[in-house]
């Protein structure tokens, strides 16, 4: 009997020793980019996970119960805000039964706070214009500068919730901003030859990148946000691109590649698949590598030297 008790004790102690050290803050985010920034800012004191995967359309994340379970014990939830996740978050957040991360609680963060929002509707919002975002374009994470705002915001939140490590969060956010500034210089240099060039994104989700790097949006493969293109529309768009000399169509892994390829082919240009979100394509493991791949893919397509399907 004694040996059995000893064995059980040893097993219990062994199991305890095998448990990894817990991070100070468990952070969940709606997007992979936000998880990447949160991990950088939080460092070893944070474990960050995203509910939406990088290759998943952030507008249409199925509100699986698994997501509720994943955030049942989270300390912080970072929403992308501007209603990008409003199709699924109102089910997932209450379903988690976690009072710490409900809107209004200390652990709920709207990452869009402080971001300069583009395409805010100036007149009334109507769904006759498609599935428009009434608070403005929510894809702000495609401007590297906006991620600096997010990093600073998260450092404040983490410091408030975990004051013991506040200095580290602040230093990490500063390091993030510095790294982003240095990277931005590199990306701006790579994109400089294409200033003023027009491109055709599949969805209206690229305006922040376009604005930052001096490109122009000629149109979208979707006739209106959320509305799939008809053959007639594809033809008209391709004709208009041909007339204006626009050659590049870009789309994300979760959009209809066939429609994008058809438009590019008929316009005599190229279509290029790019990741808007971290993890959307191979080699996009954090926000820095995402922009590396994005800039290189688009610069390649705009130069005519490389790119996707012709």
């Amino acid at each position, binding site marked *: 009997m004694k040996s059995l008790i000893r064995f059980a004790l040893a097993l219990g102690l062994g199991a305890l020793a095998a448990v990894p050290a817990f991070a100070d803050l468990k952070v969940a985010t709606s997007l992979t980019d936000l998880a990447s920034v949160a991990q950088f800012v939080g460092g070893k004191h944070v474990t960050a996970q995203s509910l939406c995967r990088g290759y998943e359309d952030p507008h249409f994340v199925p509100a699986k119960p698994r997501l509720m379970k994943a955030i049942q014990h989270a300390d912080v939830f970072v929403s992308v805000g501007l209603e990008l996740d409003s199709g699924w978050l109102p089910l997932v957040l*209450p379903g988690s039964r976690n009072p710490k991360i409900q809107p209004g609680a200390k652990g709920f963060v709207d990452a869009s706070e402080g971001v300069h929002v583009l395409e805010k509707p100036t007149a009334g919002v109507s769904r006759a214009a498609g599935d428009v975002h009434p608070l403005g374009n929510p894809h702000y994470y495609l401007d590297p500068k906006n991620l600096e705002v997010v990093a600073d915001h998260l450092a404040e939140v983490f410091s408030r919730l975990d004051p013991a490590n506040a200095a580290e969060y602040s230093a990490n956010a500063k390091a993030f901003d510095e790294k982003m500034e240095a990277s931005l210089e590199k990306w701006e240099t790579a994109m400089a030859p294409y200033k003023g060039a027009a491109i055709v994104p599949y969805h209206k989700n690229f305006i922040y990148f376009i604005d930052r790097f001096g490109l122009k949006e000629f149109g979208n493969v979707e006739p209106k946000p959320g509305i799939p293109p008809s053959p007639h529309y594809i033809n008209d768009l391709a004709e208009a691109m041909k007339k204006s000399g626009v050659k590049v169509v870009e789309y994300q892994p979760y959009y209809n590649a066939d429609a994008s390829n058809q438009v590019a082919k008929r316009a005599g240009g190229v279509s290029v698949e790019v990741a808007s979100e971290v993890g959307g394509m191979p080699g996009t493991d954090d926000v820095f590598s995402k922009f590396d791949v994005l800039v290189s893919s688009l610069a390649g397509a705009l130069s005519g030297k490389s790119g996707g399907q012709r």
Partner: protein
Amino acid sequence: MKLRTFACLSAALVCIPALATAQTSPMFSNLANPAIGMNALFSGQGAHNLDGAYGLQFDEAEISLISVVDPYWTFAGNIVFAPEEVDPEEVWVRSTSIPSLQLKLGKLRGTFGKHGLLHTHAFPFVQAPIVMANTIGEEGFKDAGAEAAWLTPLPWFSELTGGVYQAIPADGGQPLDFGSTQHDNVPFLGHFKNQFDLNDATTLEIGQSLLQGRGTDEHRHAAYGADVTVRNVPPRSSNQHGWILQSEYLQKGSRAGGSYAREQDGGYASFQYRLSQVWWVGIRGEQARKSFTDFLVDDTGASIAGKVNRGSVNVGWTPSEFSFVRLEYSHSKADAGVHPTDDRLMIQMSYTIGYHPAHAY
């Protein structure tokens, strides 16, 4: 003089909105108004056994309101306007501040089964399975009460729900008799739901449900349910492709003198397939025993019970998230009544405006 009067009148008219704002805004604000949405359903059907008017008909309009009450509660209301009634289908508050537990109280749609949790415009087929109306209600079990849903500490999604409801007798939309007025008659519900990820895209959900209370005859009346759903949503095309395979069994019965008698039972199995962003197709087979349905009548036109097998196919077109049109055909066979078979063709249209909360996965 006329010009001066006109100028004064114009100035007054210009000032009215400013005055109104100045007077009302310090006291009354609409900034915390609830999110409001409305859905309307229209349909038309052709069925040779039905003695009713043909043509397009208005089925219902549902107004939904949802808002945060305070740091502890969220409020939701669904008021349904149908041609012959106005039904406060759901009016409830839900707790937001209790770890791992969610309390819900008010007029509820009881957490029973799978199909019974759906709003009419979210039904996968125009017609609800026949067994629904014969066991817990065509649109599920709806009653005033309170539920507690506990998210268990198991590593997968595992939810245990318990509920108690007002004692109400059976009526047109509620086939369960819980109408005993004895003080110890508290109809109660139990529901256990588990969901597992089979892979990146596919989930398996298994649910069991129980609903029990005492009837006006002082006997125990109960409903039992079991459901299995396998759902596939490819993450790279969540808005374009996917399928749902779902099956559910329901039974209603009563216990008198120590012996249980099964009254009505049946089930269905359905498969829905998403062809593209805008096109869905579906097929369903079902059986309902000792059940009533609209074409099951005797030669005097009175409703009678029988065994009914029904097969349905449909195709849906959803040009946007906010509207759809569905075309559906069903063929039924019955072992009683003057119509051994029934064929019908249906069309249904749904339109939504304003805020509409996402449907449960």
